[in-house]
């Protein structure tokens, strides 16, 4: 049985930490040009909003979640899930992190595909 020294372990973990930090920095700097927000429920696209065209805030009421749409940004204002992580995530305005509510299978993200005004055939 070979042994690993503590030093080797520390180096490996430190490397992982640095790699993760770098990944996060890269992810944080990716901005999208479009401000098209998409709402997915159970994997199906149910709604798109062009956040750059929004002038007044409003809310979208889904059966288990409410989504707050504001000029240039979008967030989950309330949800009936136990951990409320989606609500505490706050607003997204660009970039690639989506807001997700795992228990209710709802996802809100800023799309990279541009120029679509509506989608036919959603969840009925």
């Amino acid at each position: 049985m070979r042994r690993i020294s503590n030093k080797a372990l520390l180096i490996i973990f430190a490397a992982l930490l640095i790699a993760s930090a770098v990944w996060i920095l890269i992810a944080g700097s990716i901005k999208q040009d479009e401000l098209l927000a998409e709402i997915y429920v159970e994997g199906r696209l149910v709604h798109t909003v062009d956040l750059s065209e929004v002038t007044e805030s409003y809310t979208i009421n889904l059966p288990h979640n409410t989504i707050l749409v504001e000029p240039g940004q979008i967030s989950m204002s309330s949800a009936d899930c136990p951990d409320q992580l989606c609500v505490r995530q706050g607003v997204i305005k660009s970039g690639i992190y989506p807001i997700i509510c795992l228990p209710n299978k709802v996802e809100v993200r800023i799309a990279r595909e541009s120029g679509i005004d509506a989608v036919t055939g959603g969840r009925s």
Partner: protein
Amino acid sequence: MKRRLLLVHIVALLAVILSSCSAKPERAESTVFAMDTLMYLEVYGDEAQATVAQAVERLYFLDGLLSAVNEDSEVSKINKSAGGFVDVPDEILEQLNAAQEVSRRSGGAFDISVLPLVTLWGFGTENAHVPSDEEIEAARRYVDYRNIELSGSSVKLAEGMSITLGAIAKGYASQTLAELFEGRGISSALVSLGGNVQVVGSKPDGSKWRIALQDPVNAGETAGVLELSDMAAVTSGGYERYFEQEGKIYHHILDPKTGRPSESGLLSVTIVCENGMTADALSTALFLLGEDGAIEYWRNYGGFEALLITDDGRMLVTEGLRGSFTQSGDAYTLEYVYGNGGA
């Protein structure tokens, strides 16, 4: 000092003049939950806000009128009065007439009297399950559009029958809104009622509205984009609502002739037509007719264009959409369908 003040005044004056010249049309939008789905309206024009408010009122009104689930709706009243004549409002009459015409033309593939079957299968509820053959046959006895009698502004269903306007109501609603918008001088608007899209005019900048088609197999992907103005686009697909039992998938588009989910070989049907109500009814009808029946219907009656996605990887597009449709990706083989005498 004086000169600077003068300059500021001139700049301010220019700013005011220029801003009023290039004033964008007023924009208003709203998203509401009605008819068991998300409804989105986007309107440009004078008094856009007031128009949107009126449109939302109309949607809630129609929801109450047409819901087959709501006990107090007009549709429920018709169903409870089966066996005798009952007066119905114009909104319902219009839909009944349109539905019956599509039923006749499609040889009964489209049939609004399928409610007993829909309720039996339980789609959309927690009770969704595969009924027994006996249960299906029992329910199917009450499914036949020919036993719906229309006389003046009254309707009579045969005993035991019940109807649902679920396959036509959203299209009727979008058509109502489009007419409302045009009546109020709105020249640019888009509504998406649970996936039933209808647009008035083009976008404010003059370009056509871009409407994406969902890929029925690869969730979240786009199969193509339609560029439209003054049109409705409605898609029917099994993928929209289904359940799985013992490894098999059962989708919600029931064939009135078999009482079971349609196995017509189509995954989705998109209809592009000036009238939203027609588009809605035809999307279901052509789905049930299958590829050959759908193309035959289109050649015989026309008045619309269609995109059919088959279960063997093809996307069939009627020739009228040439120039308005662009495929996204290559998940499907694109084939154009031509009218009589075509290839």
